[in-house]
């Protein structure tokens, strides 16, 4: 049955948020099969089915967790050969990108990256990708043999459980993982500690830019974020300057976020930044330059000095919470 494959990344039995987003998109396009690899994959099958996977291929070998890309590429190539899907969806993540790109070279098929939408058109696919910081939307069509490989940006689609979800039809694979080739192997994982909600999941984000003037001024953002239960984000200028690690970066080359409220402090609002946050429901900006482009998308803009306003704001929030 020609259908759609979704490369569903999971960790410790939990599907990654983008896996559920991919399934939400895929099930509207055709019968969908999820491929979940690594320890705990079987546990994730139910959630994958709930989001629209009619079938789930599972392979629990630790190699899928500990070796970058190649084992997943081998397995996908085999299953694609067997099932002949028309389309394979990947999340534009660290691993998704490596796997999809290697696979496209192996199969000689089209790889369309950075997609935000995909639709059927004239017996083929029309894939939307943003350009120039999202000011332009281009439509790309594949010209190579099936399957077309598409890398969808996280948060491009809102994950929703399927109404007609059925119990998963799980097929456990056990083909041995090829150990003859040289591979990239993960030796250990380091977590840099972060408090509060994750950027991708936060309902409120307090984000700082070069206008904060110095890395130590992020302390007041941490304080404000703690009061609001918010996550802290940053512009690339701040990340490039080494004030914050890359994991904080929002924008074209960082994360895409869709919080309910985004508070931009000392951020000019360059296109490459706003492409990652303009999906926020409400945007509040504080900037000393009335002409800053961020004010063109802010629901509430305050022209003023962050060093003055943010400490006052922390007090105002505290006093209102007290009541």
């Amino acid at each position, binding site marked *: 049955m020609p259908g759609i494959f979704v490369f569903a990344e999971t960790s410790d039995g939990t599907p990654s948020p983008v896996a559920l987003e991919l399934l939400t998109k895929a099930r509207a396009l055709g019968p969908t099969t999820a491929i979940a690899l690594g320890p705990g994959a079987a546990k994730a099958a139910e959630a994958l089915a709930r989001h629209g996977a009619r079938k789930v291929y599972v392979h629990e070998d630790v190699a899928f967790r500990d070796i*970058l890309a190649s084992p997943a590429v081998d397995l996908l190539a085999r299953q694609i050969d067997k099932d002949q899907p028309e389309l394979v969806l990947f999340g534009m993540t660290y691993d998704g990108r490596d796997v999809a790109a290697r696979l496209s070279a192996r199969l000689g098929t089209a790889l369309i990256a*950075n997609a935000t939408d995909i639709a059927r058109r004239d017996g083929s696919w029309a894939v939307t990708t943003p*350009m*120039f910081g999202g000011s332009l939307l281009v439509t790309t069509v594949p*010209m190579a043999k099936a399957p077309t490989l598409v890398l969808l940006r996280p948060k491009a689609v809102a994950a929703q459980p399927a109404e007609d979800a059925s119990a998963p039809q799980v097929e456990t694979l056990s083909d041995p993982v090829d150990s003859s080739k040289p591979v990239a192997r993960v*030796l250990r994982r380091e977590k*840099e500690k972060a408090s509060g909600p994750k950027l991708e999941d936060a309902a409120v984000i307090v984000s700082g830019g070069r206008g904060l003037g110095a890395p130590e001024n992020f302390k007041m953002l941490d304080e404000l974020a703690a009061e609001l239960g918010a996550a802290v984000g940053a512009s690339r200028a701040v990340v490039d300057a080494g004030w914050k690690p890359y994991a904080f970066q929002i924008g074209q080359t960082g994360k895409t976020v869709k919080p309910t409220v985004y508070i931009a402090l000392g951020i000019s609002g360059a296109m490459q930044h706003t492409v990652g946050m303009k999906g926020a429901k409400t945007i*509040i900006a504080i900037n000393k330059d009335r002409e800053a482009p961020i004010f063109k998308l802010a629901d509430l803009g305050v*022209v003023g000095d962050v060093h003055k306003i943010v400490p*006052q704001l922390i007090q105002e929030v505290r006093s209102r919470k007290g009541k």
Partner: protein
Amino acid sequence: MNVLVCVKQIPDPNAPGKLDPQTKRLVREGVDLVLDPGDEHGVEAGLQLVEKDGGEVTVISMGPPKALEAIRRALAMGAHRGILITDPGLENSDAISTARAIAAAIKGQSYEIIICGTESTDGSSGAVPAQLAELLGLPLLSFAKKLEVGDGKAVIDRQTDEGYDVVEAPLPTLVTVTGGINEARYPALRGIMQAKNKEVKQVGLKEIGLEGQAGKAALTQEVIEAAPAEPRKAGEVIDDKGEGAKRVAEFLKELKVI
């Protein structure tokens, strides 16, 4: 140790980009072209490796004849030799076509390490390096924010959402570097002078054996439409005369954040 660094020439990212309404391709005429700033980190990483352990850095680029300038910039930073793959038949190459051309151009030569940027600043598909690794049968160490090479292997700190993973691969291997890996050096005047005399080999499709199998002839995809995205509407902008913080707090209350 011999290092190959893949570099791309791109329109100056500080100038606003334009799309040709007819061909739906990026306009590359009448704009300044520069060595992709992301690839400067790749060149720097390569130079640091050979400065420590000896060997040479070769830079390779696929592009129009003008891409020679990007190679010269890398040579001025200190790279030893260049390879420019250029041919009218390569116009409109997509990522896989680019990877194939690079793989074909370096056939028969051996490199312990191939370095690429994680993603280009203009196309930003991030596909070329992994495709190249696949075509060459090499492991891929991607998203490196630190790279160490020794004992026949390379070890990187691979950026993740939570921090980083320490990942190892035997040589030869392909590595993609992020901007955080180093501070790229600025070419000194002496380097710029020396670059003029360094060898840059030019090859076309015939020399690399890909005639009729690259560029337009091998296109896997085509852009058929381009439309402006719907802009977001601006709201209220107020001047802070001492009441700004209060107004924001009230708004947050209305939004039920507080």
